[in-house]
């Protein structure tokens, strides 16, 4: 069998990082990225890209922790290199504050981020409405820079990228030996997954370069994440809302909530409003499947449904997806006499 041809559908952080992992682990493969949208128009571009994991109810904690650890280690190395600014990766310290003491005082990821500890009384004085808090240092992946950097790395390894709306994975069966589905929220339509639903998030991206620390309310609804050029202010979590249009009332509400946490934001300039649909699921769909029609088979690896936690686990799930692709290819090569090219 000639070089196995793998198509990755989707060019957000999941699609691009998965394509890169496949190119890294399977140098003999020919990898192509197909996506309706590329940066700056993906869901990933709206996200702040903070490495603070979302907990998936349906995935064992040790697996989530492994994904996060791998992602953190990978980005930590980049942040410490000359490529950091191009890749958009940087360290940021700050506080997660709670109005009521959380049930779990130590989240599963507390020993992966840096310097995790409870906030002191003096630190909490800055947040009069909050009674408890955690201080730590973590990483942030700014988009578009990170996606553009991934695209550059992909091109350097010979991966091709095309703008193309894939309506049905089967349409790829004649051109590719295997397909990786990183379509994010698009998987709802692409593979008809009713368990996947959007959680709409509206954010503001503002110019406030004096904000150097992140602040996050433990309820996950209000957050301030300083990026390289802009600070992301959030947010909302609207289940089952498909609207991509910014809502002005929501904008004012987000701004007010963030100014309550950080009064100096009143002086923020240049407010841009963005909306993204978190591709949410009880657990990330990370598994193999074989589609077949009329004796022809098309192996598929699914890697979607990362919801609010895509950036936090992207490298870990990409590596797992690449491993599954490796299994598919091995299976194909084992039965290459029956595989159709």
């Amino acid at each position, binding site marked *: 069998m000639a070089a196995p041809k793998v198509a990755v559908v989707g060019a957000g952080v999941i699609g691009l990082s998965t394509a890169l992992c496949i190119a890294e682990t399977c140098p003999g493969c020919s990898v192509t990225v197909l996506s309706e949208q590329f940066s700056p128009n993906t869901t990933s571009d709206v996200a702040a890209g903070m490495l603070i994991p979302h907990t998936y109810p349906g995935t064992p904690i040790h697996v989530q922790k492994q994904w996060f650890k791998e992602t953190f280690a990978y980005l930590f190395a980049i*942040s*410490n*290199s*000359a*490529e*950091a*600014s*191009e890749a*958009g990766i*940087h*360290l*940021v*310290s*700050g506080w997660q504050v709670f109005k009521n003491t959380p049930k779990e005082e130590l989240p599963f990821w507390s020993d992966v981020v*840096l*310097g995790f*500890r409870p*906030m*002191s009384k*003096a*630190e909490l004085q*800055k947040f009069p409405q909050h009674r408890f808090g955690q*201080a730590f*240092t973590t990483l942030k992946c*700014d988009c578009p820079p990170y996606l553009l950097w991934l695209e550059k790395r992909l091109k350097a390894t010979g991966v091709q990228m095309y703008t193309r709306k894939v309506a049905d994975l089967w349409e790829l069966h004649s051109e590719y030996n295997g397909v990786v589905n990183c379509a994010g929220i698009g998987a709802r339509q692409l593979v008809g997954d009713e368990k996947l639903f959007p959680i709409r998030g509206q954010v503001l991206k503002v110019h406030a*370069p*004096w*904000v*150097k*620390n992140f602040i996050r309310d433990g309820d996950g609804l209000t957050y301030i994440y*300083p990026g*390289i*050029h802009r600070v992301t202010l959030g947010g909302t979590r609207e289940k089952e809302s498909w609207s991509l249009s910014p809502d002005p009332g929501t904008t004012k509400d987000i701004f007010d909530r963030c100014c309550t946490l950080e*009064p*100096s934001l*009143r*002086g923020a300039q240049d407010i841009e409003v963005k909306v993204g649909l978190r591709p949410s699921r009880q657990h990330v769909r990370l598994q193999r499947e074989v589609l077949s029609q009329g004796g022809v088979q098309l192996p598929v690896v699914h890697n979607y449904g990362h919801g609010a936690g895509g950036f936090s686990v992207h490298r870990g799930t990409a590596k797992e997806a690449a491993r599954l692709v490796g299994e598919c290819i091995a299976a194909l090569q084992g039965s290459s006499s029956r595989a159709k090219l």
Partner: protein
Amino acid sequence: MRVAIIGAGVIGLSTALCIHEQYHSLVPSLEMEVYADRYTPHTTSDGAAGLWQPYLSDHGNLQETLWNKETFDYLLGHLGSPAAKEMGLFLISGYNLFTQPVPDPSWKNIVLGFRNLTPKELELFPGYSYGWFNTALMLECRSYLPWLTNKLTQRGVKFFHKKVESFQEMFAQGMDVVINCTGVRAGELQPDPELQPGRGQVIKVLAPWVKHFIITHDIESGIYNSPYVIPGSEFTVLGGIYQHGNWNEENSTQDHKTIWENCCRLLPALQKAKIVEEWSGLRPARPWVRLERETVRHGHFQAEVIHNYGHGGFGITIHWGCAMAAARLFGSILQEKKLASPPQPRL
């Protein structure tokens, strides 16, 4: 009551404001004037990155530690106010790095969240085996000095662009009290062998991805002679030069090389940073701050000088505590004048 402040750096302007705020209602005749040969953005204060951080050791000088604390608490109180942005005031977290364990600093309970670095964090800084993390404040003088100037102008304080040659010159003009905030050139008004320049040089770059300050320490070379990176609201300041006794305000190519190479080794990502400006300045170094009254004979009269200079590389860090101490000295001068018999005639 005519008061002249000589010097318009962070010390001069803050002392002026502190005194005016406290006494203008008590002394209706208070007329305040500021004299300086350099104003923002050309003062020594303007070159500083603006990080609140005292030296590692206070050498038992508890008074200075107290002034540092008063300054920190005063600024912290202003953080939530609408003035913060205009003042150039914001919170910032960061790292102090050492090649060996050191005792905790006098200011560990003044800053927020002081702790030692974890082994994982130290991996970020090869060559350093010990360190601290804490959250402190930035006060950028290119915003703070104009803010102080505005407040003073609103209060009717007058400004004069003039190099004052002697205290006598001020008294001859009718000043009752002169506040000497002349920083590194105080020796020109009154010789002071304890006052020496601590020359520094910095490179300002665009590196907006840097969100933490990083100050390294080399016990052998001494304070500020080891690389540091301090991100401001617009530029990031790279430094690490402290030359005692060097009066040269010109940028040195050798120092540029030292700063650039050392900082890029510390933070490889800086190699991609765009250099915007280079600046040299003279820290007004003294074994301790000179903050005291002096009665100066002037013909038949006596006039008062309040000295407030010699804040080395921690002027911003200590400024408000010193301003308040200077204001207290001013208060004691007022007390004495009230107790004195009929007001002395002017020349």
